[in-house]
Structures are given as C-alpha cells and as structure tokens.
C-alpha cells in the first residue's frame, strides 16, 4: 500500500478532512501521529480578511508533494506515513487550507516529519493565495521565489517584506 496520500482538493468539489488524514497515517505499530491544520484567519497585517482564493499548478504541486514526501521518508525512515492535502479555489474564514499528517512509531519523528513537510509545502509548492478584504479589495500575497535555493529543497526559515516564516 502506498504510504503517502497526496492531494489537491478543489473547494468546489469538497473539503479537507483531518479525520481522513489521521485514519490514513494510522497503523497498529504507530504510537505517534502529528497533524498540522492550516486555516483561513480573519486578519492579516491589520486588514480584515473575509476569504482567500488559492491558485495551484496542480501537476507540479503533486510532483513536488511526492518529492517532499520522499525526502521526509529518507530522513525519518521507510515506515513513515504521510498525508499531504492542499485546498484550491475560494475559501472563507475558518475553512481549512492545508492538512498535513505524519504517522510514526514514536512522537518525536511524527512532530519533526510534520514540521518538515509543512515548511517545505509552504516554501516550495506552486501555490498562490489572494486575500479578499472586507472593503472589497483583494491582494495576492508576497511569497518565496522559486528561482533560488528554495526550489532546490533547501529552504530555511526566513523573512520577506512584512512577514516571516
């Protein structure tokens, strides 16, 4: 059975499901499961947000998810099970944008694998978000350029204009 579930979920077709993620990475031999859930929040840089539209290059995103999963497996071992799903389309405040789950025999690997995967997804995946504000304005978020090292899979925590991650 494949140990990685990789998905892009169109908001018009369905919602991300953390319970499905936990179920997928569960295993009788696993004592640790870590889940990261990214949600749309109602405030950014002091502006009231009413929603976010996510744009994805689906094919490259899914290939990238597979490469990220392979790196995680190389680091945390072949037993690691991963669930990586990102939403696409228009989301409202509170909707789920991304769900990552990692299942391993022990909690330390689960925490670290989950953190590694979400950071890689954020910094490397061809995903763009456009924030919609209560005043009717919309702005595409600044992000990480894929022209440099980040695209080679060596992204580290860093800062951009106005935000850090």
């Amino acid at each position, binding site marked *: 059975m494949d140990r990685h579930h990789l998905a892009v979920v169109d908001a018009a077709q369905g919602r991300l499901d953390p319970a499905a993620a936990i179920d997928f990475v569960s295993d009788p031999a696993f004592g640790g499961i870590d889940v990261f859930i*990214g949600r749309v929040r109602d405030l950014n840089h002091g502006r009231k947000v009413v929603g976010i539209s*996510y*744009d*994805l*290059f689906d*094919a*490259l995103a899914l*290939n990238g998810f597979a490469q990220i999963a392979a790196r995680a497996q190389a680091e945390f071992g072949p037993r690691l099970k991963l669930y990586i799903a*990102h939403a696409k389309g228009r989301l409202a405040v509170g909707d789920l*944008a*991304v769900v990552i789950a990692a299942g391993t025999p022990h909690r330390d690997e689960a925490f670290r694998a989950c953190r590694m995967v*979400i950071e890689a*997804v*954020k*910094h*490397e*995946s*061809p*995903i*763009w*978000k*456009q924030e919609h504000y209560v005043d009717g304005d919309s702005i*595409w*978020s*600044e*992000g*990480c*350029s*894929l*022209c440099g090292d980040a*695209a080679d899979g060596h992204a580290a925590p860093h800062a951009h204009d106005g935000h850090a991650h």
Partner: protein
Amino acid sequence: MKIEISLFGALRECEPDARLQLELADDSGVAGLRAALAAHAQSQWPAPRAGLLGKCALADERSILRDGDALPVDGRVAVLPPVSGG
C-alpha cells in the same frame, strides 16, 4: 517552436485565460524564453506585473526549469510567481 505559456497567481490577469503563445527558435533554451517573455511583458503588461517577472521561476509539470535548460519538448511552460501556500 511555439511555446504555450501558462500564468499563475498575480500574473493570471495579464493575459486572456492566463495563457499566451510565443514563437521562439528551437535552440532558444529557457534563457531565451525568459528574455522573450520579459520583452512581451514590458510592452503588454502593467509595470508592476512586468516587474514581477524577475522574481518568477519557469517550470514544466515535473520541475523548475533553469536558464541553461533546453525548452520542454512539448512546448508547455508555466510562469511561477513567488509562492505563498499554506
């Protein structure tokens, strides 16, 4: 060869259906495509969007394309602005 270019994120609105075609010599390579795209953007796109091109990566469905790479044989290239997922 004809290159079919797909635009994403903030560049989507620069072209109808977020797509454009450019005709390039077969041996242009990715660097040649980037130069042709920049020239097109400077003449056709609003200045802020054209300026964003310098921060954009080019890619096919499998990977990021580097300036020294050949153009994809299927002629399909995506322009990727800085990413902001999650």
